[in-house]
């Protein structure tokens, strides 16, 4: 098991909003910031588009981590989408916490100019999830 952990490359699903975090990720790329290639980004138009069920579904389907990115509160392209998203994510994480799943889910506000922050968060997250090991759901018959 320890061995498996060592060679383990986590699969992280990232939900990012089109206007800030996706552009932030883009900036990280164009400015050649290095970060681990573990995240698979799904672009949403707004973090408010994220149905918490998406997170539940990817976790149950075996994703090792879920990243949710949006504009900083108050800077949403649609004025208040991320305010609603914040409430939903807080509720969802409170539920996940009861079952010890919350440490696989992280959300950050990353603006289009914060390529550095995106790279840093991805690095931190990959490390954290490597420590946690693979999602046990991956091999379960669900």
């Amino acid at each position: 098991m320890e061995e498996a952990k060592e060679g383990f490359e986590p699969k992280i699903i990232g939900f990012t909003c089109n206007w800030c975090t996706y552009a932030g990720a883009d900036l990280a790329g164009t400015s050649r910031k290095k970060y681990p290639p573990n995240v698979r980004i799904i672009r949403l138009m707004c973090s408010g588009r994220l149905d918490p069920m998406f997170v539940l579904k990817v976790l149950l389907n075996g994703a090792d981590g879920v990243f949710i990115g949006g504009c900083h509160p108050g800077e949403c392209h649609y004025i208040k989408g991320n305010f609603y998203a914040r409430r939903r994510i807080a509720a969802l994480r409170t539920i996940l916490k009861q079952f010890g799943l919350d440490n696989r889910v992280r959300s950050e506000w990353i603006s289009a100019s914060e390529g550095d922050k995106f790279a840093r968060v991805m690095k931190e997250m990959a490390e954290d999830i490597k420590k946690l090991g693979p999602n046990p759901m991956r091999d379960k018959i669900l």
Partner: protein
Amino acid sequence: MKGTELKQEDLEGLFKRLLEKKAVDCLVLPHKVGNNVAYMLVKDGDKIESPAASAIFAPSFGVNAANIVKGWTIPERVGIVAKPCEIRAAIELMKLKQMDKDSVLLISADCSGAFTNQDYADHAGEIGDWVDSGKINELKDKGIAIREACAICENRLADVGDIIIERVDGGKVLVAGITDMGVEALSSTELSLEDKDVERQAEKEKIAADAKKEKEELPKLSSVEELEEFLRDCIGCKNCRDMCPVCYCKECFFEQPLGKPVGGDLLNLAELRSAIGVPTNQLLYHLTRIYHVCTTCVGCGACEDACPKNIPLTRLYPMIAEKVQEIFEYEPGKDVEEPLPFITYEEEELEEHLR
């Protein structure tokens, strides 16, 4: 609040006059069916049986009455006489726009905790129509226990809705209107109302303290493995959803192709994961449902009663929902004017819950 004290047997007359004076066009209230209690929708006051009080305080829980008036958006006014948890659920439904605020008159009656309607019917003789906490403990020693949802309920006293019916010593009841609509309805029945201010804080605190103690003793679910074991017997019948007063989608995700895959979709899923459990999405269904009701769950326990496999769902839905309600400082069903947590926000909040 404005109200008056009545003898228990006068409640019957009150309900009849509410109908007669057109304060309501119809009335949902419990009545006796053999050994048991069930709801009926009354148009003609003559059908209200005597003594009405014996049915409205009978400690039996069948269906959550809010479910009966869910979708009541017509101008004709319906009154519902029910337990506080049912009235709370109705208030949540009003906020969810599943019921018209002005066409439903909510009348809550004191509750001391209820038995499942099976248990009530089996032991109706011993339980009787009117129980208090002493009687409940006495029955518990005999092996007849109230529902788990009732044992952990902190809000048994009638304090929500438009009209409240409180039990007072000496076989009397206090009927009072706590909203304009409630006072208006009571006034129309020609009761002489006076300002009433009943202090029940001490009683409330005692109920809450006892309930908290019971809650602490319940087994907790703390990992996915425990949740899987807990749901082992689930057959995916979704009765918990259908009987839940605050689950209201016209078409549930889990009735649609993605939520309930069949044929080729099912085969593709199996190919993707080598093997899948069927019926599918058992864990996803319950986790999603927890999220969907996490702010509105009133803890009535209808889900548990509805489960054909006797899964003690009170240990899942209300217990987890409570944690979410805590972070929003939200108490479901308390105030119809208070916005639902998911449709409002503060500019600065909740950051500590995000990562």
